[in-house]
């Protein structure tokens, strides 16, 4: 439903004589803020919560780790899972898995402040398959785009996030969808991106996550902001709404995960 903007943008790009250049900007410096990225999946594997701080735009993409924090997750059955500090601000627990329908609470104690967040792991919706087809535009170049296929269950609100890798490199893009328009349908969802061009011979891996509502809004806000780099772009960007209290950068998500890989023919 939202793809119409992509088509309109493609046509505008043909119409308007547009050009781009890299520019130098003096940007403000509101840095050193705590970033928390916590995930609990339904697969029995090490689970990670990463703590770091943001840096200035003109710095390199290396982010200072936050060490010495106390990190734990508890569930609604009274279990508490302490996370152990590892290298570069990564806190982890070995072989733990979340259960769909359960609510998980994260607590992070650092520098005398306590941050909490909670997330409920939604039901697992089966990822049926992923397929590739030739793009509508530039079809002569045999460029491909990826579609994911799954059956959305009727009468429940479901939210999905996909992560795509082409030859083991993550595509720079956010793919977040809900079933607002697709409730109960067999869904074919195109993962449209313009970061890595996909051609026959490439190996494409897609991870599907079933996420809760707040986390969906988080990813959707990021996705809408990434779409601003073309004519007709969206609203003023802002930090996506977090589920962490007190508010800081990042999120805590309990979600399911499944992966499928294809080699493009």
């Amino acid at each position, binding site marked *: *439903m*939202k793809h*119409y903007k992509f088509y309109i943008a493609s046509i505008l790009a043909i119409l308007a004589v547009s050009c*781009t250049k890299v520019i130098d900007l003096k940007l403000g410096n509101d840095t050193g803020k705590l970033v928390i990225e916590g995930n609990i999946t339904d697969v029995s594997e090490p689970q990670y919560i990463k703590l770091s701080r*943001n840096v200035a*735009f003109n710095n390199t993409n290396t982010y200072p780790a936050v060490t010495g924090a106390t990190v734990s997750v508890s569930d609604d059955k009274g279990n508490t899972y302490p996370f152990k500090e590892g290298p570069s601000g990564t806190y982890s627990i070995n072989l733990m898995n979340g259960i769909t329908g359960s609510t998980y609470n994260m607590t992070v104690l650092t520098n005398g402040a306590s941050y909490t967040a909670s997330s409920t792991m939604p039901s697992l919706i089966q990822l049926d398959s992923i397929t590739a087809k030739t793009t509508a535009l530039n079809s002569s170049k045999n460029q491909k785009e990826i579609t994911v296929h799954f059956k959305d269950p009727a009468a429940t609100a479901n939210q999905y996030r996909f992560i795509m890798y082409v030859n083991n490199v993550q595509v720079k893009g956010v793919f977040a969808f809900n079933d607002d328009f697709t409730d109960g349908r067999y869904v*074919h969802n195109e993962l449209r991106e313009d970061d890595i061009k996909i051609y026959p011979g490439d190996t494409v891996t897609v991870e599907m996550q079933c996420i809760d509502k707040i986390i969906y809004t988080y990813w959707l806000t990021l996705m809408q902001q990434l779409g601003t780099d073309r004519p*007709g772009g969206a*609203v003023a960007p802002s930090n996506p709404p977090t589920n962490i209290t007190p508010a800081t950068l990042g999120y805590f998500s309990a979600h399911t995960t499944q992966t499928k890989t294809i080699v493009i023919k």
Partner: protein
Amino acid sequence: MARTIILILLFFSVISSFAQKRYTISGTNKDEATGELLIGATVKIKELPQIGTSTNSYGFYSFSAPDGEYTLLFTYVGYETLERQVLLHQSQTVNISISPGNSLKEVVISSNKPNNDNVASPQMGLEKLNMSQINQVPVLLGERDILKTISLLPGIKSAGEGNTGFYVRGGASDQNLILLDEAPVYNASHFFGFFSTFNSDAIKDVSIYKGGMPAEYGGRLSSVLDIKMNDGNNKDFTVQGGLGLIASRIKVEGPLVKDKGSFMISARRTYLDLFLKASSDSTIKGSSLYFYDINAKANYHFDDKNALYLSGYFGKDVLSLKNTFGTNWGNSTGTIRFNHIFNNRLFSNTSLIYSNYNYTIQSLQSTDNFKATSKITDLNLKEDLQYAMGNDHTLKFGLNVLHHTIAPGDITTTATSSFNSRSIEQRYGFENAAYVSDEWKANDKLTILYGLRLSGMFLLGPGTFSTYNALGNTVSSITYSSGQSVKTYFNLEPRFSASYQLNDDNSIKISYNRNTQNIHLLTNSTSSSPTDLYVMSSNNIKPEIADQVSTGWFRNFKDNTYEFSAEVYYKKLQNQIDYKDGAQLIANQDVESQLTYGSGRAYGLELFLKKKYGRFNGWIGYTLSRTELKFDAINNGNYYPARQDRTHDLSVVGIYQLSKRWSFSGTFIYGTGNAVTYPTGKYNIGGLTTFSYSQRNGYRLPSSNRLDIGATLEGKEHKKYQSSWTFGIYNIYGHRDPYLVTFRDSKTVPNTTEAVETSIFATPIPSVTWNFKF
């Protein structure tokens, strides 16, 4: 009720005329060559220059003067001044026709003493453009454009390169009331704002009110753009048209019954899709990309007192990618008007107006096919009366009953689609208003225009209406039956402006006006998009309110050849609308849950110097302004600059008639960049470089500037036909005006990020058009 008012007024008029032995002169003022009624032409008594008036939207004027023998002076920009002797021993009708002047004859111009209306009139914040200027100002691809040209006036800012949206004194683009022959036009742009819906061939008069709106206008906060179509030549048949790079147009007009009735029909179509046919890509080749519009009008004058006008507009944009995607959208409007002159003091106009805007979006692939439609339909009955009471008062009063039907979204799909069919409840409501205003010439120096408008918004069932809390969660849900009242708002809108004339060439004016708005545009894209959605004030959305005060100094030089004005304004905005994070506006039953409310303020200084007459004419406009918004959830609840906040804005327009055949024109614009939000840091989330922000709209795009030039070559004179060539170069020095700046991982230096500026139309863009008339 209306009858009683009329009777009372008649009674007063009889009293006043007896008391002062004054007689009324009334009539219509027309173009001699075509019979077009002239709007805003001045009528004055030469011997008593303080007495006079100007013609209304239907070319009618009425005023009174003491018993005597006088010379009447009829003046209109670009026309020869006409003098007419009258023996005023009884009230009488003086219908006149004046002929277009020749701008090359400077002598004629100085002898016909242009009028000083802009100094004398109490109206402020009003700009009028004449069509010959609009037609000479150079524009993108040679498509003459009213909306682009008005954005060259102070206080009016274009929404950005290639965008027809405009902002008036800091107001949002949906706060402009755009009227085409009284019918509101909801989406005034073609191709996402690259062109406007108004084909200037069909347009007679353009007025824009930035402040001090007279009480007869209402419904939007910031401005009124009142566009009147040509009536059609009632003397001769003519055909005119033009062939341009991207569009062609044709207009036919002529008498239906000579001197009594005429018609005009004008059409335009673009052929950009021909360029697509040249593409090697089969999908692009099979795509559509065009718009067309048709303006039509007919009128019939039964006698001197009764006239009927029919006018209509129909326009459509079509855009599709072969087998993939298609969208089309358009406006249609229709107006039936009946003018009746009760007597030489009382003029009436009754209008029945229809307006519709709709769009369709279609996905054509079997796995995700859908067809989504949305529309808004207005039906409007208006009664406007104008009454000249004594010599000192011109009263205007009227009623307006406007019915809205909004169908926010209908989605149909097939079984193979990923999408469900869905239909969102339609919404119904009335926007009604009553107004009265009086223009009172208190004495030789002081003129006051004051009035009051009562507006009522009535949101009606049937339907289920939910009320949402600040988090967007449903608090209650009530189902109403057909016609049942859901929510009613009344607002009183005082309007006041006054001018104090220091002398013939100098005046000071002040004004205050309150405007309210009950229909709101929801859009989450920065350019005008066909999916723009309209909602009425409701149980969740309160009417938007604006209060504006302004004052100004008006000065004419050199026998009114030069006009100068300096105006300052302050505007307070209440109940403004913004969106929550991740807002979903399309076909959303709970769209009102996605909104958040705030306030705003705007203030500024506008300087304007205009030369209206002569071989060389044009203007310089400069605006210094600030526009700020305040929402609890944004910027910690502090004021922040609105996107359209533009500190400095300068436009220079020059038109020079070199010889009988050659004329040249140029425009230069300079403006502070839009207020934008840039990152103040970055971090990594989900494997992606992500930017952090701390202040809404805390940065500026680089300033923009551009020079466009144009030239017109009139063909050699022929008895049977005329032709001309128009040449233009848009952005002649190829300035890269920044369109947007984005941030991303660097493509050249690993592990760093970069800022990227995108410009559109960053190279000189030439155009040529051939025009003909026979």
